[in-house]
């Protein structure tokens, strides 16, 4: 294997940040193999790659979480040896990071979050000068189009604003650095936990930051978003830089092909509905959370998409069917029998399965093994008075790992040793081994790379083919269209539209979703 050659498209003078010869080993694994990256000032530079491509590792090297085995970094004309690059260097080099987990203190105000990062302004060395702090934070917020009171607690902000606050906080010393040395903003999966319209809002702001001269390095799994905002693209594969596209507008397929290293057609799932006439799930007049009377049906083998804006109650719908929330009114039935779950265990007995939205917080047992994570939904089947049948458990886990194309060293490996995509496959396998009558998926491919996403779609379709009725709540229009037979849009707590997925394209669907807001806003102004 040869090293990536120099990238001739970028000239020396035009780089804000460049990395060359970046190599990093983890034990026997070569995570980065002479990777390189060159970012032009004032651009949004997208860093792309599948699982294990090395893009996350390279960001971690820049953030000084990992030390490289070899590599040079040049920022603003200064050279750094990445073998001994520490967080002080990273800060001095003007690198500012906003990770997927924003690192904000939810219960504290915006101003307090700023001050915890930069220090509280003190009077006579003791008393905090709150007025001064609020004034300064307000002016920083204004420059980032955040017109909110700095005393607002973080958890009262909308998701896109939270990310923006984290960005503003990361860049808060931008104007104070007198020598005009510009900061470089590195965003690691900033939209991974945002609904589509929230991320659109965020990306538009990021775009405007770049237009004002801010240099941004963006890591994201969401291809369509990256395409909408990035100027340049660097694609990693197997620890090497395989392509750099400067000032380009490639298609999604081109990018996926570069990331995968093979033709993309093979990855595209073939949509063929396996819906039968038999009714699996029926929901009537369901009132729960923001839901104000949902009527919904899903047939055997049918994949139904649940679309709606954030707060529309997509997750509440799934969680009510799953017995985690109690409905205030309405009825549910599964296979014609009434479904009145008292709790999650009750819903599971009726054949319901839920893959929740936030894998890390709601599905993973991070420090337990893959086998532990898989067995958790059927522990009793392994038990007899002689104890847990460890061998059966290992055998089943091994089979599931191979059936669901999970890349893992074995059932005894820790759950977190896998990438996000493989973790999600394990969560799916955890539920599908129970052959559920109704499978509920909440943002099933959040934080999952393109390659695993294809596997997950195939798995879900296969489950439908075997007779499971699937409900997919997603904020990703193209995901809903790629996966579903039918899409319902929830608006004002009710099913507002029931659409045949084949007649739609992502733009149609997005437009229909967004129309809901504009209609509502008009109502409010009237």
């Amino acid at each position, binding site marked *: 294997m040869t090293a990536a050659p120099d990238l001739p498209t970028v000239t020396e003078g035009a780089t804000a940040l460049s990395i060359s010869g970046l190599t990093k080993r983890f034990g026997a694994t070569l995570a980065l193999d002479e990777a390189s990256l060159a970012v032009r000032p004032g651009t949004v530079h997208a860093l792309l790659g599948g699982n294990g491509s090395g893009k996350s590792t390279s960001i971690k090297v820049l953030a000084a979480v990992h030390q490289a085995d070899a590599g040079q970094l040049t920022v603003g004309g200064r050279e750094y040896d990445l073998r001994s690059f520490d967080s002080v260097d990273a800060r001095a080099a003007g690198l500012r990071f906003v990770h997927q987990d924003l690192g904000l203190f939810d219960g504290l105000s915006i101003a307090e979050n700023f001050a915890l990062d930069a220090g509280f302004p003190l009077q006579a060395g003791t008393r905090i000068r709150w007025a001064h702090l609020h004034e300064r934070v307000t002016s920083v917020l204004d420059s980032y189009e955040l017109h909110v009171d700095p005393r607002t607690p973080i958890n009262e902000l909308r998701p896109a604003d939270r990310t923006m606050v984290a960005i503003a906080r990361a860049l808060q010393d931008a104007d104070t650095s007198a020598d005009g040395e510009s900061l470089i903003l590195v965003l690691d999966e900033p939209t991974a936990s945002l609904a589509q319209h929230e991320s659109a809002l965020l990306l538009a702001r990021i775009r405007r930051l770049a237009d004002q001269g801010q240099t941004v390095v963006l890591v994201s799994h969401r291809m369509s978003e990256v395409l909408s905002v990035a100027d340049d693209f660097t694609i990693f594969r*197997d620890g090497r830089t395989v392509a750099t596209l400067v000032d380009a507008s490639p298609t999604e397929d081109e990018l996926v092909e570069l990331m995968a290293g093979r033709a993309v057609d093979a990855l595209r799932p073939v949509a063929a509905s396996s819906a039968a006439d038999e009714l699996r799930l029926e929901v009537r007049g369901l009132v729960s959370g923001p839901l104000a009377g949902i009527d919904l049906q899903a047939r055997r083998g049918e994949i139904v998409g649940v679309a709606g804006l954030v707060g529309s109650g997509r997750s509440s719908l799934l969680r009510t069917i799953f017995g*985690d929330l109690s409905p205030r009114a309405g009825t549910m039935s599964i296979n014609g029998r009434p479904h009145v779950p008292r709790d999650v*265990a009750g819903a599971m007995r009726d054949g319901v399965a839920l893959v929740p939205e936030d894998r890390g917080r709601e599905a993973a047992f991070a420090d337990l093994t893959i086998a532990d994570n898989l067995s958790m939904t059927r522990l009793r089947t392994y038990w007899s008075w002689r104890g847990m049948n460890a061998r059966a458990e290992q055998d089943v886990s091994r089979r599931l790992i191979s059936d669901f194309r999970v890349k893992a060293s074995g059932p005894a490996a820790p759950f977190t040793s896998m990438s996000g995509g493989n973790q999600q496959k394990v969560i799916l396998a955890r539920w599908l081994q129970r052959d559920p009558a109704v499978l509920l998926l909440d943002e099933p491919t959040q934080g999952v790379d393109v390659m695993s996403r294809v596997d997950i779609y195939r798995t879900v379709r296969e489950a439908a083919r075997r007779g499971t009725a699937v409900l997919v709540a997603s904020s990703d229009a193209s995901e809903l269209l790629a996966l579903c037979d039918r899409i319902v849009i929830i608006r004002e707590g009710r099913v507002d539209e029931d659409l045949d997925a084949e007649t739609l394209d992502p733009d149609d669907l997005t437009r229909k979703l967004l129309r809901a807001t504009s209609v509502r806003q008009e109502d409010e102004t009237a």
Partner: protein
Amino acid sequence: MSITNEPVTQEAAAMTNTEQSTPAESAATSTGRHRPSSHSFLGFAERYALLGLFVLICIVFTLNPTSGDVFASMNNVNAVLRGQTAVAMIALAAVFPLVTGNIDFSLGATCASSMVLSAGLMSNHGTPLLVCVVVCVAFGALVGLFNGVMVTRFRLDPFVTTLGVATLLGGVIQWYTGGQTIYQGISTTLTDFSYSKIAGLPQVTAIVVVIAVVAWYLLAQTPFGRSLYAIGSNPESAKLVGLPVRRNVMLTFVLGGTIAGAAGLLRLAVQGSATSDSGTSLLFPALAAVFLGATAIRPGFFNVVGTMIGVLFVSFSVSGLTLSGVDSAVQYVFNGAALLVAVGFSTYLGIRRRARG
């Protein structure tokens, strides 16, 4: 709102596709990506390090001329085992809540008050032994239930709740005993029992072993035990795979309290009298043992076998040190240091395990 899409001029697009590897190649690299066989020897060493350390200190104190003769004698072994009955029981009791991520500081006090309660019943009311057994165990279960309800129903912090209960029980002991030791009227059946032996070892130790086996079975070999580790790992995920999180956490407090209640009776049997001690002196060596145990057998997780090795390690180290002529205050220093080292080490293990991701 829409995304500000910057249409970039197509002719400026420059593509540098430097290398194409075949799918087979890339698949091979990515499967090999996950942990190499690093856990073969190192993993083994990690699991049995504490046991090795225990054997090592036994050898050292046996070879040490000042302590050797006494230390290795069967009398000393029996005395240590007998003396550590309550500590071992409390350690076992503490494992259950700890597995779910909760700590019970009241176990020492539960044991001590159960001891005073049974001594008082026998001494002042002539209550038969069998009734005392039932009362002790029920009392422990009730204290556990109270803690469990406070923590799961009312969502109080387990640390503060159980510390409060411990202080309260300590106060009640002081009030009831008036600082005096109860030594009259203790059932001789009970005290004699503590001196009787089975297979050359004290019978009270046999009881500890039986309870340890039951605890091990519950934690390692039942869906209940597995659910406790799941709750300890992530309570929210545990709830969303249908596990009865609140009920099971409550049960861990009840189980812990029950064992601590029984420990009180065994301690009375061993000592033959009930002091007005609040039980803190029992809790800390027990916690040291549990945390040491979490570095062994199943490193990073509280477990029964590790805990038992921890108890042996702590108690025989203290015995060896005392026999070597070190000031008896050393046991507090040793227990405290062992607790700190164990907590530090298991935290380090936890961090390292997470960092592997």
